């Protein structure tokens, strides 16, 4: 479907006047253009007080929809999509347009503030007094300077989706060789604190992809070719109206792609899909294990070539569960079935890699890894999974069979003269609905095995590389064992004792974020071995008190920190706990740039290989607010880490990959706009500047289209191997055990230490977890949560936005607690009845919506409404607050690998009197 269809109609329809005919032809196929392209220049002057400027939306974490923002006498009056942008192609979602009401929200923070009431809480009057910017910045700088001199660990810096575009806080994932975990956050790293905190551990979905695919954040669907997509607990775009992801999804559906959604509720995506598998939440792992069983034991069909040549499936495993290595070279060994002998993995004389059997070497029994995987899967029959998931065994078999058939094992496709394996299927297992569960990482790893068994990995149609480092030679580069080099969270943080990190990254080495552990550590530093106390927090776009779990514990933890500083758009919980508040610009007030990051959902040829920058021209700020980066630069300069080696400039050079004359001089102070200008020039060439970008809205080029956009191209055939046996995970567990023993300590807050170590095995296996098997029978229902077009995040203050509030209140589903109609009948509960929903960890209230669109054993609550503060709008107080039902207690709620928590506890539902 051409995005210009309406314009084309207009051209043919002579009764309509049509403008900019010459520009229309430029929009037809973005990818066929060579070199750098840009949008039409925006007007340089107003006409009758009216004009438009380029912007881009920040209504979600993607922030990659270019817009035209219309102004009348300086007032923002409309927002439309920019048709010259290859991502959104002229379209927007409700949040982009609602940005107008975000800008004009009277509940925004307008001036710098200082609290006078020492007592803190979301509903306790802070006694704000207005102070000048100079007083605010000097107070904060002096405090931070002292901390930096004494012990920089004592400052923790929060980053969250409230500031996805702020370079000095979020610029990471740039160079995977730089730092083990996320790359780095520029400002905290320059300050010298290890305490980078992330307000989002309910999307800890990276470990498995970091490990098996060597990229970040997760693998996504190649919708150019995919014919059969299994989507557990996630969206390919439609469920949150992700603009361009939605178009690609709908185009693929029109092409005939079948979508199987594995989801307790019928989502908008599932509604367009081929099959809806309503699964008990938290049991997706059982489904995945049963699929693997069915492939091995019933279908007995998988991509043998792929497994033998592009996975560590043939690697011999010793009795210790690790690679059995050649004694001389230490290389992993494989068994050549043709010559009946062991050889090193990289021996090119191997004629036939054995996948099965048992051999004796040096007096010990060894097995090919795939044999061990198959043996482990024996018990996971579809009947076994049916009991746990509630899905019929026949359905599990049928979907597995269809998946394998659609994989077209052995087929190829030629793209730009290069022959690829074609595997048009994906088990898209990195969705937070399924991965944010007790054994969510094991589920994600099981999903990787499913894709590897049919060869649908980094090839056309299959599970494909996302963004860091993207399609390039670096991504699938094999390590010394011939296996894809792991990155970021899968490498694991170094163990230090006593710990440095306030959120215990040393114990949760692979975690994405563990704010729930931080809160507990602040309250019990001795139990958590923390050798220091936090002196200060700087909050840049996170609100963990609301968006995570353990609200009460988080509040108490925050109270332990003597000095809290927040860049605030509104008076949310984090702001209300602060000592100094810096009022920040709404995104519409920021002149800024965004460098495109491939989406979390899907891609096709329309964006394959896209390198792009978007520019935003600010509207005049309404209040006494500032740009976060400007204040961060000022503080850094006063505290003394802006300049010099290791300072902000030095790290910006690294993060922005500035070279030659584009590099910042280490001893000069630059504005953020000057830094952005250099990055634009570095990426697109000196003919283009930040000013040019602002005038033209978008600059883009297709760097790796076609064959270059697939990671297989760079390491084809047998040149690399993906792990299918997760030896590295086992090593992590052993390393942790060794470190605990060496230091004679225990994992904090795990009553049974062995429960933690159960997860660190090389083959995914069933772990039920306390919600699946431990809840008393009175908690007879499950609960699940999902994002919606009105609120995928709290980004840009979706909760208080008056237009989003108006639409969600008019929506017949959005502000309700979904319950299956039959279930409600049995419980004698009525439509729109007000009920309590109670887990073992908290309770919340809501109004029922009786529906056929949800599993009978599950209730569902959309988004994250209902939690608010005394200073926020009346709209923000409506709805049901979901997160209060969760627990971050380590041995109950946490996934020890990713640090995420179970988002679907067992609950009971009863009338609220």
């Amino acid at each position: 479907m051409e995005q210009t269809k309406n314009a084309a109609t207009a051209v043919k329809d002579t009764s309509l006047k049509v403008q900019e005919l010459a520009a229309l032809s430029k929009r037809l196929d973005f990818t066929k253009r060579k070199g750098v392209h840009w949008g039409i220049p925006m007007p340089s002057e107003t006409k009758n007080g009216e004009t438009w400027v380029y912007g881009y939306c920040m209504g979600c974490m993607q922030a990659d929809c270019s817009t035209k923002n219309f102004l009348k006498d300086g007032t923002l009056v409309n927002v439309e999509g920019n048709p010259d942008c290859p991502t959104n192609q002229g379209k927007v979602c409700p949040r982009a347009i609602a940005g107008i009401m975000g800008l004009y929200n009277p509940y925004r923070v307008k001036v710098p503030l200082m609290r006078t009431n020492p007592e803190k809480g979301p509903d306790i009057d802070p006694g704000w007094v207005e102070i000048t910017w100079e007083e605010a910045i000097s107070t904060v700088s002096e405090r931070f300077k002292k901390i930096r001199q004494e012990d920089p660990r004592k400052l923790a810096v929060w980053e969250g989706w409230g500031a996805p575009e702020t370079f000095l806080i979020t610029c990471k994932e740039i160079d995977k060789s730089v730092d083990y975990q996320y790359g780095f956050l520029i400002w905290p790293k320059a300050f010298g604190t290890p305490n980078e905190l992330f307000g989002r551990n309910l999307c800890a979905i990276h470990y498995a992809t970091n490990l098996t695919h060597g990229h970040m954040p997760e693998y996504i669907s190649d919708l150019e070719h995919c014919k059969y997509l299994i989507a557990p607990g996630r969206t390919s775009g439609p469920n949150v109206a992700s603009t361009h992801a939605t178009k690609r999804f709908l185009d693929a559906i029109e092409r005939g792609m079948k979508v199987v959604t594995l989801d307790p509720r019928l989502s908008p995506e599932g509604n367009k899909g081929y099959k809806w598998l309503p699964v008990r939440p938290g049991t997706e792992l059982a489904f995945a294990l049963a699929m693997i069983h069915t492939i091995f034991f019933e279908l007995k069909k998988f991509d043998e070539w792929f497994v033998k040549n592009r996975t560590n499936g043939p690697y011999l495993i010793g009795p210790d569960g690790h690679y059995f290595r050649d004694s001389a070279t230490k290389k992993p060994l494989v068994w050549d079935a043709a010559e009946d002998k062991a050889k090193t993995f990289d021996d090119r004389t191997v004629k036939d890699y054995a996948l099965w059997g048992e051999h004796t070497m040096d007096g010990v029994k060894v097995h090919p890894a795939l044999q061990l995987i198959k043996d482990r899967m024996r018990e996971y029959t579809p009947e076994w999974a049916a009991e746990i998931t509630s899905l019929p065994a026949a359905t599990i078999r049928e979907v597995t069979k269809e998946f394998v058939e659609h994989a077209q094992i052995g087929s190829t496709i030629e793209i730009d003269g290069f022959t690829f394996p074609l595997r048009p299927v994906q088990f898209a297992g990195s969705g937070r609905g399924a991965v944010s569960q007790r054994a969510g990482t094991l589920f994600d790893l099981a999903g990787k095995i499913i894709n590897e068994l049919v060869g649908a990995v980094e090839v056309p149609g299959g599970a494909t590389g996302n963004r860091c480092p993207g399609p390039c030679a670096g991504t699938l580069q094999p390590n010394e064992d011939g296996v894809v080099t792991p990155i970021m969270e899968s490498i694991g943080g170094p163990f230090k004792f006593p710990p440095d990190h306030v959120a215990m990254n040393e114990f949760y080495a692979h975690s994405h974020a563990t704010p729930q552990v931080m809160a507990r550590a602040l309250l019990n530093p001795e139990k958590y071995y923390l050798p220091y106390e936090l002196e200060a927090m700087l909050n840049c776009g996170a609100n963990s008190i609301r968006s995570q779990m353990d609200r009460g514990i988080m509040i108490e933890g925050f109270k332990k920190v003597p000095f809290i500083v927040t860049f605030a758009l509104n008076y949310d919980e984090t702001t209300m706990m602060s000592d100094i508040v810096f009022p920040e610009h709404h995104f519409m007030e920021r002149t800024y740039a965004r460098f495109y990051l491939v989406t979390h959902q899907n891609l096709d040829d329309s964006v394959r290989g896209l390198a792009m920058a978007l520019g935003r021209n600010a509207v005049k700020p309404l209040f006494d607010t500032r740009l976060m980066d400007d204040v961060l630069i000022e503080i850094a300069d006063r505290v003394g880490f802006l300049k010099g080696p290791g300072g902000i400039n030095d790290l910006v050079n690294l993060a922005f990959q500035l070279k030659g004359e584009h590099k910042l001089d280490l001893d000069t102070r630059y504005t953020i706009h000057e830094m952005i200008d250099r990055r634009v020039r570095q990426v697109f060439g000196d003919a283009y500047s930040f000013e040019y970008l602002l005038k033209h809205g978008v600059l883009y080029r297709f760097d790796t289209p076609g064959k270059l956009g697939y990671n297989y191209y760079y390491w084809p055939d047998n040149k690399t191997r993906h792990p299918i046996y997760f030896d590295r995970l086992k090593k992590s567990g052993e390393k942790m055990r060794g470190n605990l023993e060496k230091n004679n300590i225990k994992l904090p807050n795990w009553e049974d230490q062995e429960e933690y170590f159960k997860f660190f095995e090389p083959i995914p296996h069933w772990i039920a977890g306390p919600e699946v098997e431990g809840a008393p029978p009175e908690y007879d229902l499950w609960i699940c949560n999902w994002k919606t077009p009105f609120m995928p995040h709290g980004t840009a203050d979706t909760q208080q936005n008056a237009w989003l509030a108006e639409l969600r209140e008019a929506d017949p589903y959005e502000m309700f607690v979904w319950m299956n109609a039959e279930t409600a009948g049995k419980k004698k509960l009525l439509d729109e009845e007000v009920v309590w929903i109670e887990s073992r960890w908290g309770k919340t209230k809501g109004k029922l919506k009786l529906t056929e669109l949800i599993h009978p054993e599950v209730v569902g609550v959309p988004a994250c409404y209902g939690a608010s503060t005394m200073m926020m709008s009346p709209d923000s107080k409506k709805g049901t607050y979901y997160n209060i039902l969760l627990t971050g207690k380590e041995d109950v709620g946490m996934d020890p690998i990713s640090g995420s928590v179970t988002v679907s506890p067992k609950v009971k539902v009863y009338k609220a009197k």
Partner: protein
Amino acid sequence: MARYGMVIDLKRCLGCDTCTMACKAANATTRGILWNRVLKYETGKYPSAKLNYLPVLCMHCKEPECEKVCPTGATSKREDGIVVVDNEKCVGCRYCMLACVYASRYFYDEVRTFYSGQLTPFEQIKQDKHRLGTVEKCDFCSERVQAGQEPSCVVSCTGHARYFGNLDDPNSEVSRLIKDRGGFVLNPEMNTDPSVYYLPTEQGGRD
């Protein structure tokens, strides 16, 4: 002269309400009045249930009942097919609301600010085209159409599910879509000949 009409592809509509929001911003209706809405309703029983989306707006009927009953001539149908309300002539009798087959008209009876009690700059600058005590509705963004643009809901639709054009031109995209995909109108038995057509979710069928 064209007869303007709209086509909405229910196969692509995902109920995201971008159209509703685009209309809100373009027309600055007061809180609680939505000229475009997306109806959401279920069919079937679990686990074979479906959620259906139906964006509705003024149908700009060729034979509008609202025009027939309007005592002041405030409601009229233009030559290009767009049905408009002149709020200077409207006296707010609301007879048209009773007559409208599609319940697509709204009585502006009260200023309800977006944020309780406070008028934003947007409302101050953009809401003066509305007149208290009158009936109002979608006008296919007539001023935009006059300027050679399409209605805001069409321009912004996330799913690329909305089309606009000349129904009297058999070669226009809207006409071709209706013919090729079996476009249908709501409640044809009321004989108002609406100008908004829908494309079915499945080939040849409708939910």
